[in-house]
């Protein structure tokens, strides 16, 4: 039994290790944790004191680096932003879906970043800015504020049913990052981005399931951003 002020937590973890066996398996570990501990702390406890072979990515441990997106009790979240008290006494942890699993909770992020790179994720402005800042009003700045919060954790993209099924869809995160530039008053490559996103792999694959919005650990209104990009394509053509 758990000590005073502590709770027992059983973690049901989806394991995979190509060095050991070809198929994934489930494993259960029970640990003691403080109710306010993060799920990441609980996973560390398993890794550090029970099974060193458990592999996961993590870094900052407070929801800003985007390393530890996982499928927790059937929903995508960052393990460092889920508290033990909210999942105890039992939690299921799986790797995020739609990307190849490399080991345990670690997936291949390359397809995800390839999608990100495909939408020209950088400011394009060929005019000479001079030696001072380009002006931008607070209202213009506010227009894309929400989508600058993205930490590229892939929680949104791997929550999307279209992304799981298909190898082509760029996914919500890439569109969020396109939005960040399309609606930046300083950027000049909006038309090119919108052209890329009007293609088969682009924004019109979105079926507004809102899984992405609910999965985003940064509270970005992902679906709304995608819809705004759709509208931009629509009116850019009309």
């Amino acid at each position, binding site marked *: 039994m758990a000590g005073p002020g502590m709770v027992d937590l059983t973690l049901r973890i989806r394991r995979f290790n190509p060095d050991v066996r070809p198929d994934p398996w489930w494993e259960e570990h029970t640990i003691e944790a403080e109710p306010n501990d993060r799920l990441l702390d609980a996973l560390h406890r398993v890794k550090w004191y029970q099974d060193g072979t458990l592999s996961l990515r993590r870094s900052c441990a407070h929801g800003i680096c985007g390393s530890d997106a996982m499928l927790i009790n059937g929903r995508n979240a960052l393990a460092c932003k889920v508290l033990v008290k909210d999942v105890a006494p039992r939690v299921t942890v799986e790797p995020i879906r739609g990307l190849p699993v490399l080991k345990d909770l670690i997936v291949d992020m390359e397809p995800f970043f390839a999608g990100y790179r495909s939408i020209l994720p950088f400011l394009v402005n060929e005019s000479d800015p001079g030696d001072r800042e380009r002006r931008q009003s607070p209202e213009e700045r506010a227009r894309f504020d929400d989508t600058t919060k993205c930490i590229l954790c892939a929680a949104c993209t791997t929550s999307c049913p279209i992304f799981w099924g298909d190898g082509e869809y760029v996914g919500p995160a890439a569109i969020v990052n396109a939005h960040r530039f399309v609606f930046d008053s300083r950027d000049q490559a909006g038309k090119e981005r919108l052209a890329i996103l009007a293609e088969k792999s682009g924004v019109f694959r979105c079926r507004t399931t809102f*899984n992405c919005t609910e999965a985003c650990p940064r509270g970005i209104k992902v679906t709304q951003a995608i819809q705004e990009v759709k509208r931009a394509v629509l009116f850019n053509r009309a």
Partner: protein
Amino acid sequence: MADRQTRRRDEGYGRLYRGSREGQWSWVLHRVTGVVVILFLFAHVLDTAVVGWGPAAYDRVVSIYKNPVVQFLEWILVAAVLYHAFNGVRIMIVDFWPRAARRHRELSYGTIGVFVAVMIWVSIVMLPRVFR
């Protein structure tokens, strides 16, 4: 000591993604009802085409629709068309008015509300024919 460990055989993925209740499941239903309607449409074009072969042939074909079991299926078809239509309106609202995305839950429940209300009326009209 609470620490313990067990190993189990693979139970397979198979677990549903517990995504947005309002968004994910209305999308699944939209697809399912869409497929139901298009498959019916294929059949319906064929049966209507029989009209070109005259009354005898056509009346024989449409008599199938008067079977109670088929009439129950017809009730399902009407439900599918109506759900697909109402949910389609919701999708368009979200598509053409991005700010509506912030109220997507309310929109979903509104859609379901309208659908259920209309289906109550549809059922009052149609179901007695099935159980007659």
